[in-house]
């Protein structure tokens, strides 16, 4: 009963392709070694911006609700949906506010800017430091494994279909080496005009 980031388990990854981005997560929620839920999704949507949240499940739920609240008010005031870059800064400030009593989460933002059509991904630490990336972003209890898988499988300018295959293999095989991640997976492929969501068949051990 020590590290809040590895009580519930879970992992997420995002990748940049040619005029597209992908974001994916596992579906496991556990209590240390006991698996409790196989339908605990960790990717949330706010307009055309996607947020992956791993870590302590209570904080994942709370932050989802917090960002839903903040982006709803943003939309009312700005009369437009929030862009990925702006949302990333919103995440950063929200987390740093809790600098000395943080949320135990590993966030990833992914999306395509609706004005510039630029794909965008980034990750953060639990206190809001933004880590911009042009290729991939990884978080969760299988992050070490995901680093290895992504570094090995990733190449730039993948088409949406190829990006789907690549991100899926990176997530599945990383999860299979982590006792606290897995029990299914959900993959989002995001392009300018279309968002597709697919569930992956994975090992159930």
């Amino acid at each position, binding site marked *: 009963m020590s590290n809040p980031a*590895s009580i519930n*388990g879970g992992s997420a990854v995002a990748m940049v392709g040619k005029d597209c981005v992908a974001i994916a997560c596992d579906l496991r929620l*556990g209590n*240390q*070694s*006991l*698996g409790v839920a196989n339908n605990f999704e960790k990717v949330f949507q706010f307009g055309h911006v996607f947020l992956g949240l791993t870590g302590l499940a209570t904080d994942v739920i709370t932050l989802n609700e917090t960002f839903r609240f903040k982006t709803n008010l943003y939309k009312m005031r700005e009369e437009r949906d929030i862009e990925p870059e702006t949302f990333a800064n919103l995440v950063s400030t929200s987390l740093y506010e809790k600098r000395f009593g943080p949320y135990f989460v590993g966030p990833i933002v992914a999306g395509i800017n609706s004005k510039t059509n630029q794909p965008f991904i980034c990750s953060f630490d639990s206190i809001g430091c933004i880590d911009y990336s042009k290729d991939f972003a990884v978080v969760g*209890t299988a992050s*070490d*494994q995901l680093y290895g898988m992504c570094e090995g499988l990733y190449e730039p300018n993948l088409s949406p279909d190829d990006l789907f295959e690549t991100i899926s293999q990176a997530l599945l095989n990383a999860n*299979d*080496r*982590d*006792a*606290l991640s897995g029990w299914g997976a959900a993959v989002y492929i995001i392009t300018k005009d279309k968002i597709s969501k697919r569930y992956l068949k994975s*090992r*159930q*051990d």
Partner: protein
Amino acid sequence: MNGINVDINHLKKGEVNLGTSIMAVKFDGGVILGADSRTTTGAYIANRVTDKLTQVHGTVWCCRSGSAADTQAVADIVKYHLELYEAQHGAPPTTKIAASLFQELCYNNKDALTAGIICAGYDDKEKGAIYSIPIGGSIHKQEYAIAGSGSTFIYGYCNKNFKSNMTRDETVEFIKTSLSQAIKWDGSSGGVIRMVVLTASGVERLVFYPEDYVNA
């Protein structure tokens, strides 16, 4: 401090854990041992195809759980003693003797060891026999035994579904279904299901992959 205190954070730094689901079941022809194949270092799966079913003599085998190093060392020592026993007595040792040796090592070194062992075998005297030796070094003769972190999830299932004198195939299905559930719920268990069938005819190894057991 009053009473008995058990330290569950028992692994030394860097030690690998056979966080595990193991069992042994007696049937009409002998015994069958079963185990998952996952070894973890913390949450990292260090080995996903581990063999936790270890031979200590002919048709006397054991299922290992706890510290990988401790159980390998203990099993090696027992194997040595049993080989010597056969040389000196001219007859193979019984399962009871092997279990007694396990107990002596596990009890006398209880402060240093983290080993949960199920010793099971077939000999002509007792036919099939199963001895459970949990942490602490006590010994328990049973018709069937379950152990390891994953066993906690199948106490109810096994209690309800075990029958004495099942056939070989019934026993294989019972172990497959039981370990399938243990693997499903326990993060420290997984991989393939290995089994070893011990009868008068000798030793038979079996492997079952996720496709075969996920819906058992």
